[in-house]
């Protein structure tokens, strides 16, 4: 599968703050890509660059197989975007929002929009200000999906939702992905959510991608070493934080450890926490 999104050494500063520092990532067609990172790691900046709200200071962007200097309106029409804070017009109903947003997409599917409203149980004629946070998030997803975009960018769509609403949202997202096979970039700091939904994961730390791959590979690469006396590390091993180390799967399997040394497989959350805490001075976006 060729990549739908490819970022290569993309950097972006906000004044003195370096939000992205030569960040690279690759999202393949049809996959859900989980962009994991702490608050301020650079996830939102990455997505805002992909949707064209921000421009990178340096680096290359490739969208749908073509290198682009900036995200133009026709490109934007092929991307659905759900932001953390939707900022809908408070006086507009879901129906009015659909009519308004639909005017900007030549591929807008009104029937699909109504179907999604019904599917996600969103009242059509209630003003957006009167909707709950969860329903507003679902409305954002509906508006992003109705033009049937080949790429969907979700910027922490479940932030602020209670666990039930979050589960419901994620279930419906998974179902819609199964139905359509849309490529999705899902930014989140909820590891479990990403683990459940994403086929591949990118961990962003201090504006850089420190890992990219599927969750199983990540678990195979990052392990915990517990030993009475820590031996000198074999070649090819890199310390992530404390007693957590990173190496190729082969090295883990072929290295010889002193007696009494325990090698533990970690959960994705434990690995994420190890990466996240490795650098507490993370720049923010």
């Amino acid at each position, binding site marked *: 599968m060729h990549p739908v999104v490819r970022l290569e050494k993309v950097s972006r500063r906000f004044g003195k703050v370096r939000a992205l520092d030569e960040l690279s990532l690759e999202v393949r067609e049809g996959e859900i890509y989980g962009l994991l990172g702490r608050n301020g790691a650079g996830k939102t900046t990455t997505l805002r660059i992909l*949707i064209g*709200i*921000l*421009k990178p200071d340096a680096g290359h962007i490739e969208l749908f197989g073509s290198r682009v200097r900036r995200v133009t*309106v*026709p490109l*934007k*029409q092929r991307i659905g*975007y759900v*932001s953390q*804070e*939707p*900022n*809908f*017009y*408070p*006086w507009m109903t879901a129906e*009015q929002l659909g009519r*308004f*947003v639909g*005017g*900007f*997409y030549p591929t807008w599917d009104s029937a699909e929009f109504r179907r999604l409203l019904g599917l996600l149980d969103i009242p059509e004629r209630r003003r957006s200000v009167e909707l709950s946070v969860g329903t507003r998030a679902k409305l954002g997803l509906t508006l992003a999906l109705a033009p049937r975009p080949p790429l969907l960018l979700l910027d922490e769509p479940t932030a602020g939702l209670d666990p039930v609403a979050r589960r419901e949202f994620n279930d419906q997202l998974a179902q819609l992905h199964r139905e359509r096979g849309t490529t999705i970039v899902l930014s989140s700091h909820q590891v479990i959510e990403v683990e459940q939904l994403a086929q591949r994961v990118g961990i962003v730390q201090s504006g850089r991608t420190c890992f990219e791959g599927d969750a199983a590979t990540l678990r195979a690469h990052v392990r915990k070493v517990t030993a009475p006396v820590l031996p000198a590390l074999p070649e090819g091993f890199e310390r992530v934080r404390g007693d957590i180390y990173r190496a190729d799967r082969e090295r883990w399997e072929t290295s010889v450890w002193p007696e009494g040394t325990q090698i533990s497989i970690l959960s994705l959350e434990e690995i994420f926490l190890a990466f996240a805490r490795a650098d507490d001075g993370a720049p923010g976006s």
Partner: protein
Amino acid sequence: MIRGLVMKELREHGWAILLLWLGSALALLVFLRKAEREASPFVSFGYLSAVFGPLLSLAVTNRLVVREYGSRTQLFLETLPVTRARVVAAKWLLGAGASLFPIVAALAATAALASGGVLITARFMTLLAVRSLSFVLWFYALSFVVSLLGRYRFVAWGVLLTGLLALHSFIQLPIVRLPPFNLVSSGLVFERLTLPAADLLVTWSITVLLLMGAFAIALVGEGSLSALLARRMTRRERVVVAVAALVPVALLGILHGRKPKPPFHLRSALIVEHGGQSIGVALTANLSVAVARTLGEAIASDLAELKTYLGLTRTPPVYVLPDASLDGDMFLRATLPASDGVVVRSALGSRGFQEDEFRTFVIGEVLDWYTRGRANREDERWFFDGFKQWWLAQRLPSFEDRLRRRAAAGPTRLTPDADTLRRWLTAREQVGDCLGDALAWRIVSVLARDVGPLAIQSTARELWGSRPPNDARVLFEPSFEQVLWRRTGITVPVLAERTVTALAQDRAGLAAQSDAQSSWSADFEARPAGGRLYEIQYRLGSSGDTVPAYAVRYTTLQPWDGELSRSTLSRVDAVRQGVLPLTVERGTRMFAAVEVWNEPLQCTVRIGARRWVVP
């Protein structure tokens, strides 16, 4: 895409824009009504362009820009496939249309209404349209840029307004004669031939710059600047901005007050000098040079002596302008916005001109100038009124005799107790200027009799002898009653009691000259005149004598009206009962009084003065 944005704006703001247009139509009707008395019905269109055009632009940009950025919904627009530039362009164009349409409609409506009475040519209409639309578009562009400044927009308006005032005040820049303001000046509706090309070019250039400024603010930093500016102020920021806004305004006010103004000068006036004091008297056909010189010398002599008496460091240039339209006992002081001095008007040279009273008036106005108006404060006003009469009467026995007779006539209507002295303006309004001055003279003359003239001089010197500072230090001055006690050892209640006794003695001594008017009474009655309107009927009644010719003085009162000058009151001359030439609504506040000329006292006596609310 633009269509989608425009439709959204219309759905959101359409009703507000319609209301604004309706408001414009109503404003045009009001202005048309106002313009009935003007030379051209297009004057109403001029008013609408100059006044309502900017107001409309402010309201439109507030809806289109401040609301969008203030509620951060522009961030939602950014996520859609539309460029920021298009969003701003759609807003700008829609707002411009909404602001300009009422002006075009008003021009068409005015032209249709005026077509019978005014020559309307295509060139004239083009001139009107180009000038007014250019002005409104300029203001709209300015308002759009300022609205994009978000939480700093009020600061920006404050700076602009203060800057214009400063330019007008300090370098006398005639802003209304400069573009873009002069496009809608009074010449707008009378210029039929010449296109003010240079002014239009300047206005359009500013408009283009403002348009570029709007796009720059909206687009710079990928919209982050406008988003940042639109955030609400923190408390600390509010305080800083409030202080930053108030300090320049306060400084401007102080500097404006301290800025020396050139002395008033009337080249054609006769200048009379005496004791280093010069007086200018304007000459008219009714006024001989000899009379003018005599009066000028008398006033100059008064002021020169007063200067020494009170230790004044300087006196203003004084000019007297004869005005035959005034009554002999009516004196007015002109307001001089751009020059310094005391310019007074009186019926000098006419029959009935009261010279002695006029000289006391000039003394009072010079002291008012010297004390920056503080001599007229109500708590010391009786002393001020009484002092200037007393000081002159010492030199003019005939004037003193007149004052004594007038004062004796006063107490039948007014008892000078302590409360009356403290609320002197109310008391004075009841009896009129002539008896009020006489009564004040009697109080000061009783004080002089009991404590000696030197105590009066030292009191007056402390009150008015040094020019008060032109800033907040005046708040720390001692009260008048403290000064009076310190300088004379007498309190206001004691002085009032002694005055009552003295007046009783005066009345006994002058019994032969009884106050004939004491039996007269004036009545005012509101009568329905249809609907909510009332007319005011007046009547002067007498238990004995025949009622003479009299004048009714009246005015409607505004909530902030304090002292009523005689010159601001309307006047109706009457010999019998009648109706005032005005109709008022229920709840209107009014003042009315009857004034009768008393020949023995040589004084206009006020009867039945009252303030009331039409029931």
